[in-house]
């Protein structure tokens, strides 16, 4: 082999190729390293809180006594958000995919996406300044008329800054996520199924119930799970809206707290063991959302294999 101008220029190109593919590989590995780092650094910084004597943790009864109520509070807020958001989101997604006029559908989808674009702190401010005030008469009514239910036990909060308000604000925030995911799934329904149902004389609702919803069920479940992941980790809406306190069953009095809001409210002024306690709380939140998200992804991937949609 002789070194011709051609092959020598190829040598330079080969180096470029190596550098470029190496950089791409490094970037991919960096992401893995970062995620590993997230877990590692959270664990390392959290260990002091887990090993410290119980009396030194806030509340004086150890880390698990501290984290338990706020885990429950987080779940309560997220469940309220999903209970409200899921039916509305499915309705909106159906409206955009099957009811709205074709020309309008894209624009309407964009309007719903705008909901997702509004920063969470603005939702929090809106919830605290507007929604809480407007909704507190409804809480009074609930306390008077439904007070026999433990979740509506009075006296209702005068400011309306309760876990139910926080849940409603969260539901507005997860609505666009569930909507956009379910809309995609609804649009993937095989056209032939829909047309077959219509040709047999089904009304539009019967067509949706018989062909669209059965097809989309796994997709809806995973969309709701992803919404749950978002609702669990959402911070500002709760931090600004909820006047927090001890764990209570009643949704319309002040009380309860979520992990994310607890961290946001206390971390800026924290020092020493308190920092590790809060980081340990963050680790717990990370693990919960990780589990929820992985289950959702698993449902999606299983769905992909069997539906023949792709």
């Amino acid at each position: 082999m002789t070194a011709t101008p051609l092959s020598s220029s190829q040598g330079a190109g080969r180096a470029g190729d190596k550098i470029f593919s190496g950089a791409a590989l490094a970037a991919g590995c960096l992401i893995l390293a970062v995620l590993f780092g997230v877990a590692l650094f959270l664990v390392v910084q959290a260990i002091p809180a887990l090993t410290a004597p119980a009396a030194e943790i806030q509340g004086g009864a150890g880390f698990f006594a501290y984290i338990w109520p706020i885990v429950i509070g987080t779940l309560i807020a997220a469940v309220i958000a999903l209970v409200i958001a899921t039916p509305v989101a499915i309705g909106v997604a159906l409206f955009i995919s099957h009811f709205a006029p074709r020309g309008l559908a894209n624009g309407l989808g964009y309007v719903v996406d705008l909901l997702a674009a509004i920063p969470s702190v603005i939702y929090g401010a809106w919830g605290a300044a507007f929604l809480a005030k407007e909704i507190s008469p409804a809480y009074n009514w609930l306390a008077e008329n439904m007070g026999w239910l433990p979740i509506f036990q009075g006296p209702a909060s005068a400011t309306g800054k309760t876990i139910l308000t926080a849940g409603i604000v969260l539901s507005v925030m997860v609505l666009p996520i569930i909507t956009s995911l379910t809309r995609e799934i609804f649009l993937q329904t095989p056209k032939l199924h829909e047309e077959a149902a219509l040709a047999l004389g089904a009304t539009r609702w019967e067509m949706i119930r018989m062909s669209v919803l059965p097809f989309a069920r796994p997709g809806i479940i995973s969309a709701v799970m992803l919404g749950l992941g978002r609702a669990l980790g959402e911070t500002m809406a709760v931090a600004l809206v909820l006047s927090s306190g001890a764990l209570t069953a009643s949704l319309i009095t002040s009380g309860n707290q979520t992990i994310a809001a607890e961290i946001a409210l206390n971390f800026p002024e924290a020092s020493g063991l308190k920092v590790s306690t809060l980081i340990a709380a963050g680790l717990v939140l990370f693990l919960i959302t990780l589990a929820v998200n992985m289950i959702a992804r698993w449902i999606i991937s299983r769905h992909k294999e069997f539906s023949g949609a792709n």
Partner: protein
Amino acid sequence: MSSTLTPVRSKRSALTKGQLPAFAPYVVLAAALIIGAAILALIGFNTFGWGIVSALLFAVGLVSWSAMVEGSRKAKDKLATCLVVGSFLIALLPLISVIWTVLVNGLPGLIAPGFLTNSMNGVTGVYDNKAVEEGAPVIGGIYHALIGTIQMTVLATIISVPVGLLTAIYLVEYGNDGRLARAITFFVDVMTGIPSIVAGLFAAAFFFAVVGPGTKTGAVAAVALSVLMIPVVVRSSEEMLKIVPNELREAAYALGVRKWRTIVKVVIPTAISGIASGVTLAIARVIGETAPILVTAGFATSINNNVFGGWMASLPTFIYTQILNPTSPANPDPSSQRAWGAALVLIILVMILNLGARLIARIFAPKTGR
């Protein structure tokens, strides 16, 4: 005209028998609005209640009329349509309400003199008390927060875009759907689901361990924002690179072009519109993030131009602190005016970025057809 021999009682043919006339929804709507107004007039009128009551009356009226004329199947269909349209209208309510609240409360703050050009340095409760009690102008502004937001977001973009884009290139061009590529895809999905506050805690924990306890600077916040931004950039760029036709790559290879030159000169330019709009959307997402900045950059009331040293303010944390810890606890109104003004600025920024993403996608879209 002449009269017919057998007077026809209805003009409707047998084919359209048993159907509601086309004008039925409008009749029911008008009736519902009138009856709704009457009911509300009895218990005290308000527009919101009128809308709710009328909507319920409309649904009940239309469905029961349909059940009488058309039978239960058509009635169920009508009910489902009402519910679906109703849920869309319900979803619009918070959007309108949020934007209206921010506009109404934010405009006085935004047009206050010096709001965009002053910081909160030296603004104390004394001035706020004066503003409320003596009607002096509300002073103090968001200049320092704007500087902070822009610096942190730019730094986060500088970190995230190369990493995210290169990862997407690896996944599409080099990964071959191998084990590493699948692991990266999976963990990018996982990263998408990281709560923003956990990303903030990670950056804080990382810098506490590496630099020293209590390290809070704009750069730490930028790292936290990158953790949130990278997965968004990877996913959108990956989608865009995937739809670049393989023929383009093969044509380049056939001309003897190196793979990396093909990617840089052919693949990326073809996909640049989608990539750019994806990056813009990612910026729009992180620019409004509050929680990670709160735990990583602290708060500042004065201008800090150094992203690598000292506490830094940002628009979202400015809003948060002004609402939660008003400058003058006795008179929180000036603080809330500033907070809403900042919220308006933030919402305008986010909307501009969102519209910009659409424009970029349209302007730089590769010319197809001829």
